């Protein structure tokens, strides 16, 4: 038996019929001259605008990307199998738009905002243009609030602030997505809305990410935008912009949002395909001339906007709030080669990068972040006080350790000070390891860093460090709940807190239970 759709309720149909605008409007029409590889050449369409939606017969849509003297090059968004030479194409007078709003949270949508998770239609009240210009300089505010990823290695050494663009770069299969997904999971209680944009990935990988988000209660504050490898190149090209528009909805209304582009390499590939098929001249690595602009205009939209912007945007309904959109773009390198075209472009656009290395990964260090070359150019001013105070030493210890480790391979006997430094470095390296899907609170990180800074780890074996940390956290969370709560809420590191931490860790060590 056929089933009724939710959109087939009589009242809804009645309303639709009532609202139908049947006045005839003048429209611009053209004729399809050729259809090939998702690119349609249209003759006519004299009044077409760049980026305008073009409507074909049978309800297919396209986007006008090449405006030439005698023809218009249109990329088809979706299936182009029904299109044929001689059919008509109509201008719609609109540029590409996607639904935006709170209603999208918890949903999985395609690049055009249509639900693909089988949970029924999305009742979004508003739509917004996919391609928008980033807020100008006078609407910007400095980055000074932390965006906790929950990874102590990241939050201590390459802190990310709200409104920052931090690149995650590295080879395939060594945990780039893991860092981004954990950052999303860690926003569970922070009120930060998340958007995960999957571009050119396997459906199975995407299903996995969605399931993990669901398992960790993180889907409720997340929108997943999917343009998988099997979808049209045009959709893979549009998906990051669509996701960005959904994120800007929250930013513009004085909220904080986090967007993950996973990954921009594949978006560049899709754009390269479109450009070559549109016969635009190829440049380096066969990318078109505007592949830098492709990413710069996208990442520039991730920003922190000031109170005036939010007030003006909401017509004074939201007062005294700043908005932010933090971006974590992901770039996949081939054999660690960061000097390829797209990686260098995105490195230069973003405010820092988290470098994930296969050498670290193979040495069992997870997250496989290389602390030496990973940087955050603006996050320092946004870091929580306690992490900033205690994390400074970690970076230094690791830097010294790397130098000494290289040097000590030649020297057989080392003096006392060098040996101590080496051991400290090993311990810190061990301490920086962290399991996937187990983000830490600020207080937990603070306690771990405090223990390392104040030499509480020095009498432990390397293999004991992680069990020790785990036991210490559970002790602190149960026995010192007030102190932990205070740290989590204020993020301060005062003399009193320092003393309290010291006595707490000493008490724990006295129990010898790890």
């Amino acid at each position, binding site marked *: 038996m056929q089933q009724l759709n939710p959109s087939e309720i009589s009242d809804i149909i009645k309303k639709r019929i009532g609202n139908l605008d*049947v006045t005839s409007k003048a429209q611009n*029409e*053209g004729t399809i001259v050729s259809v090939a590889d998702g690119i349609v*050449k249209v003759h006519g369409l*004299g009044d077409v605008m760049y980026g305008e939606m073009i409507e074909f017969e049978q309800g297919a849509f396209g986007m006008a990307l090449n405006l030439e*003297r*005698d*023809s218009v090059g249109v990329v088809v968004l979706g299936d182009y199998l029904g299109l044929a030479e001689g059919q008509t194409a109509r201008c719609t007078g609109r540029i590409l738009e996607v639904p935006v709003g709170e209603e999208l949270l918890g949903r999985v949508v395609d690049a055009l905002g249509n639900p693909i998770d089988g949970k029924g239609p999305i009742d979004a009240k508003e739509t917004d243009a996919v391609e928008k210009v980033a807020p100008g300089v006078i609407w910007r505010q400095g980055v000074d609030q932390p965006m906790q990823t929950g990874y102590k290695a990241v939050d201590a050494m390459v802190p990310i602030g709200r409104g920052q663009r931090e690149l995650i770069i590295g080879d395939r299969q060594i945990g780039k997505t893991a860092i981004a997904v954990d950052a999303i999971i860690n926003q569970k209680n922070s009120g930060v809305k998340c958007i995960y944009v999957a571009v050119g990935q396997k459906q199975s990988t995407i299903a996995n990410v969605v399931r993990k988000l669901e398992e960790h209660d993180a889907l409720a504050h997340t929108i997943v935008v999917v343009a998988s490898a099997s979808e049209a190149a045009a959709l893979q090209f549009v998906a990051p912009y669509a996701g960005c528009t959904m994120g800007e909805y929250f930013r513009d209304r004085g909220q904080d949002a986090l967007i993950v582009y996973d990954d921009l390499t594949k978006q560049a590939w899709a754009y390269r395909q479109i450009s070559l098929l549109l016969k635009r001249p190829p440049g380096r690595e066969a990318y078109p001339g505007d592949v830098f602009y492709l990413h710069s205009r996208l990442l520039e939209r991730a920003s922190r906007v000031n109170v005036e912007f939010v007030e003006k945007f909401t017509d004074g309904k939201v007062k005294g709030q700043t908005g932010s959109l933090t971006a974590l773009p992901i770039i996949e390198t081939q054999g660690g080669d960061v000097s390829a075209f797209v990686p260098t472009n995105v490195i230069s656009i973003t405010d820092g990068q988290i470098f994930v290395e296969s050498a670290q990964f193979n040495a069992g260090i997870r997250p496989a972040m290389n602390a030496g070359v990973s940087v955050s150019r603006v996050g320092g001013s946004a870091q929580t006080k306690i992490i900033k105070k205690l994390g400074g030493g970690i970076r230094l210890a690791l830097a010294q350790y790397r130098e000494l480790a290289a040097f000590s391979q030649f020297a057989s006997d080392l003096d006392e000070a060098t040996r101590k430094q080496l051991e400290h470095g090993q311990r810190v390296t061990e301490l920086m390891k962290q399991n996937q899907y187990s983000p830490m609170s600020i207080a937990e990180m603070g306690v771990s860093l405090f223990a390392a800074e104040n030499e509480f780890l020095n009498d432990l074996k390397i293999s004991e460090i992680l069990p020790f940390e785990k036991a210490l956290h559970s002790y602190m969370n149960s026995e010192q709940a007030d102190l932990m709560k205070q740290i989590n809420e204020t993020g301060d590191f005062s003399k009193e807190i320092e003393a309290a931490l010291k006595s707490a860790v000493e008490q724990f060590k006295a129990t010898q239970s790890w």
Partner: protein
Amino acid sequence: MADMNTLARPYAKAAFEFAISEGKLAEWSAMLGLVAEAASNKEVANLLKNPSLGSEDKAEILLEICKAKIDDKGRNFILLLSEKDRLPLIPVIAEIYEAFKAEQEKSVEAEVTSAFEINAEQQKLLVDALRKRLDREVSLKVVIDKRLIGGVVIRTGDLVIDGSIRGKLAKLAESLKS
């Protein structure tokens, strides 16, 4: 097709500007129309494509067909085309020439598709309304198409105004589907 336009445009533009300077817009229009008609004839078109004939021979053939209506300047134009090996472009050149001419004369042809016969009074109403809207002299071409069910569809160049019952039904179907 797009490429043909690009190739034909400079020839059409030159012919058009020459015709204006000579004050013979209508004559050139008739001339080009005739040659284009001749060139699009199937047999002539095949001849023009025949590789065993030289360009000059092809020009001779065309001029022979149209000699009664073609003046010296027109002859020169055909010979020039043959010299550049662009004779097959003639129909496109004529088309673009007509577009230039229509632009110059501020005239436009509107194709009106209707479900029923349109009487003279209705036609006058349509022409007046279109003239106001397009700011052009309008010549109507009426086509009857029962499939529209009712109403008219007006087409001038790229612009389409769909006031037919069929168009409205399609709109309704779409709004119910979305």
